Every structure is written in C-alpha cells, then in structure tokens.
C-alpha cells in the first residue's frame, strides 16, 4: 500500500465531514429523522400522504448545493471515469441494493455508526469490503 500524498486532503475532507455531521445532527434533533439519502429518495417512489414534501425538499437541497456553491466559488473538480453502460449498471445495482439493505453511506455509515447501531456497523463493513474488492478486481485484476 502506498499513500497518494498529492491528492490527500485531510483538512477539506474533515471539514466536509463535519458539515455532513451537522446536517445529520440537525435532522435528528429537529425533524426526528435519520438523514439517510437512499431511504429519503426511495420513499418518494411509494408516496404516502403527508410524507412527500419533506423528502422532496431534502433532495432539492442536495441537488441545489452546487448552485449555492457557485454563488461564492467555482465548483471543485469532478471526474467521472466510468463509461455510460457501466454507470447504468452501477446505478441500477446501487438503487436496488441500498433499498434491499435499508441504507447507504449516509444512513448506515454516518447516522447508524453515530448511534452505534449493530446493523449499521455490519452494513458499513459489508459495503466497504465489497467496495474495496470491486475496485481491486477492476483495477488490478481486469485492468480496466
């Protein structure tokens, strides 16, 4: 293992993480809910009365974050190497399996670990593990 110091951004990542933590904290303290993105978005597909607007507004806030950012600074680098077919396959897998596993990086990884939920700790270990294995296979075995 070699650490890539040229792209290592500990302070920016830590500050961004703190902002994410503040958002998760606000949502449980004020709205009484877990800020889990896959659950909030997925819930919009089976709309229940009185349960739509807060979800839509949360998603709108996330989608508008780059626009808010642009008011003060140019957007940070964003590089998407995956081809369109791969993006479609990956998107389908992420959509199905985050709903099947009741959460993603935010609900399990941030909120779940913050409240020491055994289910979320296991889920996070599982998706980290398969994420590492997938990238290893693609980059070092298949050589894509």
């Amino acid at each position, binding site marked *: *293992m070699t650490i890539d110091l040229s*792209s*290592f951004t500990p302070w920016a*990542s830590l500050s*961004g*993480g*703190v*902002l*994410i933590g503040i*958002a998760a904290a606000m*949502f449980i*303290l*004020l*709205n*009484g809910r877990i800020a889990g993105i*896959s659950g909030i978005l997925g819930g919009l597909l089976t709309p229940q009365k009185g349960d739509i607007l*807060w*979800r839509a*507004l949360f*998603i*709108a*806030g*996330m*989608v508008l*974050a*780059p626009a*808010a950012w642009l008011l003060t600074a140019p957007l940070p680098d*964003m*590089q*998407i*190497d*995956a081809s369109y077919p*791969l*993006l*479609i*396959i*990956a*998107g*389908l*897998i*992420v*959509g*199905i*399996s985050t*709903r099947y596993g*009741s*959460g993603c*990086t*935010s609900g399990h990884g*941030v909120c779940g670990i*913050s*409240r020491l939920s*055994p*289910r979320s700790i296991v*889920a996070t270990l599982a*998706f980290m593990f*398969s994420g*590492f294995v*997938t*990238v290893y296979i693609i980059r070092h075995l298949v050589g894509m």
Partner: protein
Amino acid sequence: MNKHFVSAFVTGLIFGIGLLVSGMANPDKVLSFLDIAGAWDPSLAFVMGGAIAVGAIAFTFIKGRTHSLWGEPLRLPGKKDLDKRLIMGSLGFGIGWGLAGFCPGPALVAFGTGAPKAIVFVAAMIAGMAIYEVIEKSRTKAVN
C-alpha cells in the same frame, strides 16, 4: 411555510455542500479511496470521521428521548436482527459503489452540477429503486 419543511431543505443543502467540500462528490476521489492496493487516498476516512464525531454527539443527546427538540416523534429504525437482506443488500451496494464511485448522496449533488454522466447514474439508480419496489410488491402478494 412549516419550519420542518424549511429544515429539511436546509439539511439537504448543508449535506450537499459538505459532500462538495469533502471531495466525496468526485467519483475519482472515491475510487482512489477504495483502491487500497494502488496509490491510496485515505481522505474519505476523514469525511466519515468528521461526520461521525458530530453525529455521535447528537445521537447521544437524543438517546432515550421520544421526541425531537421540535416535538416531532423520533423515527429511528427498530430492526435489530442482522438478516440476509441487510448483508446481501449492503454487499451489493458496495459493488455498485466500487463500479462507478457514486453512492446516492454524492450522485444527487453531482446531478445538480448538470454533468450528463451523473444524470444517467441518478436515472439508473432511481430505476433500480423502482425495480426494488416492484419486486417487493410481488413478493408480499405471493406471501398473502
């Protein structure tokens, strides 16, 4: 407008800005984190660390309460068992995450930049979530 809706929007916005600041909205950076056998960029561990440190304070504070500070009932996941769905779903999510470098939150933020590849990923992800709902519906029908 009801304050809960305002807080949902603001929470989504802060979450999204946090993802931009942290570098997590950049799939290239996410994949560099997942590539432990290559030139490893450990930044994302700092995102998780920062988010969990703040989140843990809020979830510790709210522990044992039944309502949020605004009097909303707390909606915390009640499931305790480490079932097949949780584990298979999470393993599956990690595969999708490792294929493209997108998890649901960062994908929505990238969608907000208007990047065509992010739009395709989000469309596929929502389609995946819809497929999940269809499978669930037919499953419960089969049981009844």
